[in-house]
């Protein structure tokens, strides 16, 4: 189905890195020296129990919160996001859990929402005239590239199934991301079939060359697509696991603290 994953040499430069992130809300410590590494072309799952602070980490990476201290790097360059828009300008796209699509609008309109293609020439810019044909053609081309079978880009998103809607959100981020796609529980509200469809889409995004950060509670899904698993616990990274070498049960034990990462055999850890 998909191209085999060839892990890049550990020496390959990291796409995204965070060091020692700290975020406190009053006396609550959401991030307590959290580290993070994303390699080129991988699907990195981020898992953690509720309250482990993984959403704070993801918010920091996507620009939704500003950490109190710590450093973040994108392609080796130090970065500091002030807003999600800021992160997006830097080529990081986030697919939100609650389906950030406008249901009554068409697929093409949703793909280009806020980034419409305007007609060329001064009139197009002055009156911000939409180049509907170009948007439609590019949407079709892009969706075909992801092998996302939709008859017409002119259908309203609300005529789609839940999985297809999520697919539109994924496709939209893949279309505009230049560095990283972050997906927050993209399969949470979906049935088996639809969930698999979205997983397929996530693999295709990875195979197109974009690294994916996948936040998920669904262990089977994580094990199905992730190349590495970042386990978050007590506000920091507990371990990076190799899903091909560790069982789901052991992974959950690391996540809940029943097994200490130090007690794992070294080959279960991803490099």
């Amino acid at each position, binding site marked *: 189905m998909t191209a085999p994953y060839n892990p890049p040499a550990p020496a390959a430069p990291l796409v995204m890195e965070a060091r020692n992130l700290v975020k406190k809300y009053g006396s609550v410590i959401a991030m307590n020296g959290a580290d993070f590494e994303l390699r080129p072309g991988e699907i990195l799952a981020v898992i953690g129990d509720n309250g482990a602070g993984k959403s704070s980490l993801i918010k920091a990476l996507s620009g939704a919160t500003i950490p109190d201290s710590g450093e973040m790097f994108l392609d080796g360059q130090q970065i500091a996001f002030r807003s999600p828009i800021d992160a997006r300008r830097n080529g990081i796209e986030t697919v939100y859990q609650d389906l950030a699509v406008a249901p009554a609008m068409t697929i093409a*309109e949703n793909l280009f929402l806020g980034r*419409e293609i305007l007609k060329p020439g001064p009139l197009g810019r002055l009156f911000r005239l939409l180049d509907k044909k170009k948007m439609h053609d590019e949407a079709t081309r892009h969706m075909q590239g992801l092998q*996302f*079978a939709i008859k017409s880009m002119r259908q309203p998103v609300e005529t789609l199934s839940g999985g297809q809607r999520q697919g539109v959100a994924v496709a939209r981020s893949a279309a505009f991301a230049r560095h990283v796609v972050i997906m927050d529980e993209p399969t949470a509200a979906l049935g088996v079939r639809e969930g698999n469809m979205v997983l397929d889409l996530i693999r295709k995004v990875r195979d197109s060359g974009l690294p994916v950060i996948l936040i998920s509670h669904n262990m089977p899904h994580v094990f199905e697509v992730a190349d590495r698993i970042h386990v978050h616990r007590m506000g920091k990274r507990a371990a990076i696991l190799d899903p091909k070498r560790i069982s789901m049960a052991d992974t959950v034990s690391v996540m809940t603290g029943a097994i200490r990462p130090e007690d794992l055999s070294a080959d279960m850890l991803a490099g």
Partner: protein
Amino acid sequence: MTQPAPASTAPPPRRFQLPSLSTLGPLIALLIAVIVFSSQSPRFFSGTNFSLILQQISYTAVLAIGQTLIILIAGIDLSIGIVMALGGLVMAKLATQSGLNPLLAIGAGFLTTMFFGFLNSQIITRLRVPPFIATLGMLGIVTALNQTYSGSQTLSNLPPALTALGNTFKIGGTAITYGTVLMLVLYLIAWFVLSETAPGRHVYAVGNNPEAARLSGIPINRLTVTVYTVAGLLYGIAALILVARTGVGDPNAGQTDNLDSITAVVLGGTSLFGGRGNVLGTLLGAIIVGVFRNGLQLIGIASVYQSLITGILIIAAVALDQVSRRKG
């Protein structure tokens, strides 16, 4: 990768469908009304009468463009007619009692109505007051303002510039006012902006899913301010059309136009929840109200029944819309 794409397992999307009941219903109602009134009154089906109907609805129809824009972003404006009345008073008073150049007086009227649209938007975006409450409050404030500003007096003896939109030209023997033409042109402009420009689509997105719009980088507050202020400009134009038609600045004008404009919007198939609808539907809605009012009058039915029928039409239009959506 020869396998069929997984999305094909989902139910096939409905692509070719009739226009929804919400647009078809009102059109059918209009057709039936025209047929019935034509058979009952020989005076109904004539160019002159149709021109009169358009002239009668013209200022409410222009207000309804503003109301459509506002409802599309999931807002509402209850101060719409009263603000229009204030605009008319400002124009009339400045042009007569203050002796200002009539064109400047018109400009001052426009600025006044735009200011109150802007003020509504500030109350909504900065103070976070829901649009219904913000504009309900503004309705009370501007009602009082209209009475004090005019001394509860109707202002007449207006200079010709203020009544120019009431002048007519002839097409094949039918006299048409410039105000009617202006109204139709404004509808075309509004339709074009809403469907063919990026800000127009943003209006729909904000009403449809504000969170999605925000995450897409659409400045929601700025768009809200723009929509209410542009609506304010439309109220000013409506004021000019009304002043031209009646020849006076009337402090009691516009009192039912908040509900009349909402009626036109709803009959035209725009959802009160925002994000769905079409401004040309609003024109259809305004025409339906005008045709019923005119037709019932011509066949000699008492005016109480006009509001009865408008009431039934509104409920029927929204009920049809709900039914068609549930099926969809």
